[in-house]
């Protein structure tokens, strides 16, 4: 630290700050982010974050697609929890349409959303462990992620880029053996959770590297716009699922873990506990769900049955117009927000009354966290960037849109 340096030292020896670029192609900056670091020895004096390496023009492309064609783009936002993005966007468009979806649809959305949250937390925890050297923990987390993805594949047909949500409902109902498969996954996830806890939570090396590093106090966190596990680790009890419930979150029982110090260790603990809570929510959903339709009953929004499409002119016209012109969403503007796995995911949607959106703006938690990450890094050491960046869990797709 600079205060340990004798005041006369730089009169004899010429010192200069070192410019270090922890560039986009770094194994630890997954999701391509660049840190322009000004270093004084090992200490970071100034950090300038640069993002945009994964910018794909999501918002611009959405303006040229119909409302339902935007779903594949939303998959690729936070690509480790695609279902949460799908449903967040569907919720926003349904608000504009003032359309209510049937209860079973909401249960399934809650359930699948929590599965996505599980995959994200497992990835974040695993990656943090990996980059601090604990490769076994990473492999256990990835195993957990794999069995979850198998479940997702059964339901949606794809592991990662699912496009499962639709305006007015879902693509399809859950398969019949879902509950059975979930039993196996659930047991295995509990085991994995226990493994990780024993491997990491009292691990000397892990504690040394994550405790006390990347700390932030609640007021600064709020000022920087942090939400999600980061804000909760700092001690602020804010979870959109509890405060402004949507889908069926007000009908399930779950706790929201809140940390104390806001450092990396707390963030890791918050995520670990959220895994247990998500499993709890999924169990309750499966218990309380009733059979029923999964799409809204509005032919102007939802595609008709294929049988009707091929055999009746009405079904054909319906399908034709919905696919080629898109759903005619009345003109208006809405800002709708859900709890993404990293923070609050908001969709600011403007419609001009036609089948294509006029604007789809995304409030991506990762980008806002990147805006404030230099606050956590400055004053710390170079090695602390790794656990901080990992527990912030910036997902490139979400940050750069």
């Amino acid at each position, binding site marked *: 630290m600079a*205060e340990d340096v004798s005041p006369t030292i*730089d009169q004899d020896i010429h010192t200069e700050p070192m410019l270090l670029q922890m560039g986009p192609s770094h194994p630890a900056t997954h999701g391509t982010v660049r840190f322009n670091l*000004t270093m004084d020895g090992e200490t970071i004096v100034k950090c300038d974050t640069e993002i*945009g390496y994964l910018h794909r*023009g999501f918002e611009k492309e959405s303006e040229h697609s119909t409302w339902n064609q935007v779903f594949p783009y939303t998959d690729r936002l936070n690509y480790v929890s695609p279902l949460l993005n799908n449903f967040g966007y569907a919720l926003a468009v349904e608000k504009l349409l003032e359309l209510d979806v049937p209860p079973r649809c909401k249960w399934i959305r809650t359930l699948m959303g929590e599965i996505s949250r599980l995959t994200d937390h497992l990835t974040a925890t695993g990656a943090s462990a990996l980059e601090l050297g604990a490769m076994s923990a990473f492999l256990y987390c990835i195993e957990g992620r794999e069995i979850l993805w198998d479940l997702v594949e059964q339901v949606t047909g794809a592991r990662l880029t699912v496009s499962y949500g639709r305006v007015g409902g879902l693509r399809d109902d859950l398969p019949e053996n879902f509950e059975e498969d979930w039993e196996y996954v659930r047991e295995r996830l509990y085991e994995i959770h226990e493994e990780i806890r024993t491997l990491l939570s009292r691990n000397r090396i892990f504690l040394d590297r994550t405790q006390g590093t990347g700390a932030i106090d609640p007021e600064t966190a709020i000022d920087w*716009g942090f939400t999600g596990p980061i804000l909760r680790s700092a001690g602020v009890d804010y979870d959109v699922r509890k405060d402004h419930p949507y889908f069926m979150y007000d009908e399930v029982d779950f706790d929201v873990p809140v940390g104390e110090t806001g450092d990396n260790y707390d963030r890791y603990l918050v995520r670990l506990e959220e895994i247990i809570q998500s499993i709890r929510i999924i169990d309750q959903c499966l218990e309380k769900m009733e059979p029923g339709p999964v799409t809204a009953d509005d032919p102007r929004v939802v595609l008709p049955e294929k049988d009707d499409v091929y055999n009746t002119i009405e079904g054909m016209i319906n399908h034709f117009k919905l696919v080629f012109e898109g759903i005619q969403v009345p003109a208006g503007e*809405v800002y709708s927000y859900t709890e993404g796995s990293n923070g609050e995911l908001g969709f600011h949607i403007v419609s001009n009354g036609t089948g294509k959106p006029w604007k789809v703006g995304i409030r991506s938690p990762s*980008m806002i966290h990147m805006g404030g990450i230099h606050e956590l890094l400055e004053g710390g050491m170079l090695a602390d960037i790794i656990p901080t960046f990992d527990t912030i869990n910036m997902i490139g797709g979400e940050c750069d849109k």
Partner: protein
Amino acid sequence: MAEILIDYVREEYEDAVLESHSRLGNDTVVVDKDAVPDVIQFLKDDDRCKMNLLRQISCVDYDNRHPRFEVVYVLYSLQHKHMLLVRAPVPEDDCEVPTISHLYRTAGWLEREVWDMYGVTFDGHPDLRRVMMYEEFEGHPLRKDYDKQDGQPRTEFLSRERDSVEEFNIYVKDRDAAGSRDE
């Protein structure tokens, strides 16, 4: 729904408010763009409002409408759990809004993003440069007249040096002035 917030704003800043409405779960107040920092400061500091979380700054390009742009601020209060949207229409020929980066630190990046994507400048912003696009990018991509397929000129390979010797010296000198090395 917190329509009461609209009333508070109207009380304090009646002449700045152009319009207000409450639709689809969003309470909105449309204000004159020069009044934005005052209105938002009021919303942040007033005890009844306490909007301490700036959720989003976004911009909408209403092509062929005058004023062309509209900057949208989404504010939220963690204490009272209410949300308000503040919108400021910005005409194309006077494409500038006073900054609120002194009120919320997250506004720094959010305003940079709006500048990058739409070309709306923020008067008083300490560091208005591109955030998602690279520096040499020409134009503002999310504007409606920027064609999706537009190309960009090739850029030269630059080697960038940032001179942060001054920053280092400030760092060292500040700590000197604070007397941290006296013991």
